């Protein structure tokens, strides 16, 4: 009996499951809000940049699993993911180096107080928040691009540069004498 319900289109086409898609549509915006909450409240409560970034990637992976690659690449394409990843590392290292340039240690947020015009404890809080935003961006984008690289073939990116096939591979095979 199980063979009778396994039809041809289940094996060949993109498999769409109504329950998975409907539940994912309700869940995903709230998962994303939760991820951003974990990032933004990392200096008050458990969590932080890495955890929030991973939850954010999980929401994107859920879109990928439920709706296919096109739906997720329409939101963040490969190039934008790499740019976000670099931007995240830039924010993290930039804040650290700024503290270094102002005469403190690396990531010594107290040195930021004169620039931001706030008290030293407040500057520490803001500095940690900035670093966590950077870490969150970098983790999200890096894990997202890893998922895309594991799962997808570049030829299916509809709005993306596709990696050109090398000339010699498409050339007709010469008959061997």
């Amino acid at each position, binding site marked *: *009996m199980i063979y009778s319900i396994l039809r041809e289109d289940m094996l060949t086409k993109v498999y769409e499951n*109504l*329950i998975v898609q409907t*539940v994912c549509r309700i869940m995903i*915006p*709230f998962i994303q809000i939760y991820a*951003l909450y974990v990032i933004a409240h990392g200096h008050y409560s458990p969590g932080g940049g890495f955890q929030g970034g991973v939850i954010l990637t999980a929401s994107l992976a859920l879109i990928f699993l439920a709706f296919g690659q096109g739906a997720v690449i*329409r939101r963040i394409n490969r190039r934008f993911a790499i740019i976000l990843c670099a931007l995240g590392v830039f924010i993290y290292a930039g804040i650290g180096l700024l503290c270094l340039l102002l005469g403190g240690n690396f990531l010594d947020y107290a040195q930021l107080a004169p620039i931001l015009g706030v008290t030293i404890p407040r500057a520490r809080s803001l500095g940690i928040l900035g670093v966590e935003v950077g870490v969150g961006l970098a983790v999200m984008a890096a894990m997202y691009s890893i998922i895309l690289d594991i799962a997808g073939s570049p030829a299916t990116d509809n709005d993306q540069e596709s990696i050109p096939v090398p000339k010699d591979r498409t050339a007709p095979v010469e008959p061997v004498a």
Partner: protein
Amino acid sequence: MLLKKLPFTRYLTTFFYTFVFWLFLSGHYDIFHVTIGILCCAGVSYVSTDLLFFYKADKKRPFIVVEFFLYTFWLLFQIIIANLQVARLVLSPKLKIDPRIVVYKCRYLKGDVPKATYGNSITLTPGTVTLDIHGRDFYVHALTPAFAKSLKTGTMERKVAHIYH
């Protein structure tokens, strides 16, 4: 970032619901944290508004939330009953299980949300699992013929249809 343009009210509705969720999570209600919340909710509603949908009934149904709430209590009762039945089956030394996949053709349900609700209700009830939905056909794995038979009576489907239609 090629996203389909949607009506502005839909973005606003998504923003409202996500922001309520944010305030529920956050617990810090100073200007700084609320501002971060507004920025995050704006970003999420820009990216994910096309995913979040709001169920529109074909008729005006003002008490749909209340009816859904009452249905969950009925479902909870069914889950407890089926739990006891499954426990009796699997704990008896004879292990009288006879698993099968049955096709249930639904009669009343139309649209994605009622079908997904019904499919999830079948899965939540022990002994039966919805494997797939194709059009009106529900492919359900049942542990014994008795579970399949109680599914075929269609009581649960009528309850779900009573909420939505």
